[in-house]
């Protein structure tokens, strides 16, 4: 619930984690991982966003209805990305099928 008090220690730990992950993003940018470049960058970004939502936005200590709302948001983002990819990933299929 919103009444839950989070200790400063936790906040500092999360802040430190975010800084480390930012440094990891910068470091990864200097290494050419080929097709994995985007995957690595996005994985780090998602990890950071999760930490912010769980601790800085107090989601971890929130009631279930708030979790439902967040889950709806994430699901809808999934729909946007998933159905858009249904186009982008299959555009070359027709050309392939026609030889």
């Amino acid at each position, binding site marked *: 619930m919103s009444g839950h008090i989070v200790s400063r220690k936790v906040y500092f730990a999360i802040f430190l984690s975010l800084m480390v992950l930012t440094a990891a993003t910068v470091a990864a940018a200097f290494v050419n991982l080929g097709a994995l470049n985007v995957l690595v960058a996005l994985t780090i970004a998602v990890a950071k966003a999760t930490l912010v939502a769980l601790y800085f936005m107090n989601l971890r200590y929130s009631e279930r209805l708030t979790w439902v709302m967040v889950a709806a948001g994430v699901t809808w983002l999934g729909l946007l990305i998933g*159905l858009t990819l249904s186009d982008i990933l299959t555009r070359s299929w027709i050309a392939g099928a026609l030889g």
Partner: protein
Amino acid sequence: MQTSHAMAEVPGPAPQALDYLNADYGIRSWLFTIDHKRIAILYLLMITIMFVVGGVFAAAVRLELLTPQGDAFEADTYNKLFTMHGIVMIFFFLIPSIPAVLGNFCLPLMIGARDLAFPRINLLSWYVYMVGAVFGTFAIVAGGVDTGWTFYTPYSTTASQTNVIPAVLAGFIVGFSTILTGLNFIVTVHKMRAPGMTWFRMPLFVWAIYATSLIQMLATPVLAITLLLLVLERGLHIGIFDPALGGDPVLFQHMFWFYSHPAVYIMILPSMGVVSEIVTCFSRKQIFGYTFVAFSSLGIAVIGFLVWGHHLFVSGQSAYAGMLFSLLSFLVAIPSAIKVFNWTATLYKGKISWDTPMLYVFGFIGLFTIGGLTGLFLAALGLDVHLTDTYFVVAHFHYIMVGGAIMGYLGGLHYWWPKITGRLYPEFWAKIAAVNIFIGFNLTFFPQFLLGYLGMPRRYHAYPEEFQVLNVLSTGGAPVLGVGYLLPMVYLIWSMRYGPRASANPWRATGLEWTTPSPPTTHNFEEVPVVTQDAYDYPAMEKKVA
């Protein structure tokens, strides 16, 4: 069948009890109000002005299309006219129309609450709308914008020399007003229902507004992101959508329609809620299949998110994605059909009366059905290749958004007008206007189905001569429709001063809003009501009268 359902009048001089209208006077009392009913009136005022502005642009478009030659306006001017018609009508009239006016006014009353959950955020939403309107007005006055209301890239980011950024920012800003309203409604429905007002006792209008609010919350942020990316590309040349900069123009269409297709349901779902209220009241029957109608609103809200790709069938989208979106688009017809069948079943053996709100409902059911069924034509992959970007599409979405959404809005406005103003409108003129709108609408838009089927493309200011007869019919219908819209503006304003005073429940309707005085007091209910009955228990009410 009953022929008329006379509105109950209160005889003699009116009691001057304090209500939300006369509780305070002066411009400050309106501009700083946090009363949901007054904020609804503020919205009503603004969206009416916007409706007139959008209507003027529409009239200019129809005037140009009276003759095959492009003689009234230059091609570029014509592009601006239909663009601004779309932007004003969609972002500034249709989307806020029922939620921000009738939803704002009625939702707390209908669930037995004294206000919305966040009254100050409610007022903030109106000011945000006004800031958006300032940007929109600037875009118009500074010379207009010519991209079409869809702002398609790469034209909007690279080629257009018109006021794209102010117009885009207008849409961006007004979107936040929508988000705030949606948030307020969702929290209010969850947290502020009166004791005994369970989810399945809620009026179906509340279900519809709730489903609409979910769409507003989940879709509008994507519009904001998309429009912001457009501004970044146009202003700073960051490649997102422009192929020359490494972008993908079809990505813009995906992101834009992820919002804009559900936005159609933001317009039509509240109208469906209004229809459910009116159809029960004026046939004196419980709604047929309450649970189905309630869940079909949520069904439309969810499935409506999965169909956007049918706007991209000929845009270079993968054929496989096209098949998927075609199938999903057919699915959305199911919850819509459930509603239409259930309303029709509600009418069966009902004591139907032909008062003005009911005329609009009959109009809605007929026109929405035509609009919905022609949507299935467009969802079919092969047929859409022929019909895409023709007047068939224009006719289809006007049957949904004007024949459906505006009919519902006007029906609801007439239905709740005695509650909003405490006055009755002249029934005779109201009926004339409703019939006038129905005739004018069909005369304007039905020929456009034929024109589109014959191959007339949309968004051109000139056309081949063989299309003239149908275009003359369409342009001839526009003034009839215009008079139909003008009439309510005149007699509703007239009724605010000269109309007979309305009783608390002039339609003998169920619902908590009708237990309050007309107009209600600032805090709606002297005592918080306790609900013990299901919604629409008209049979019990009729028995009592008998």
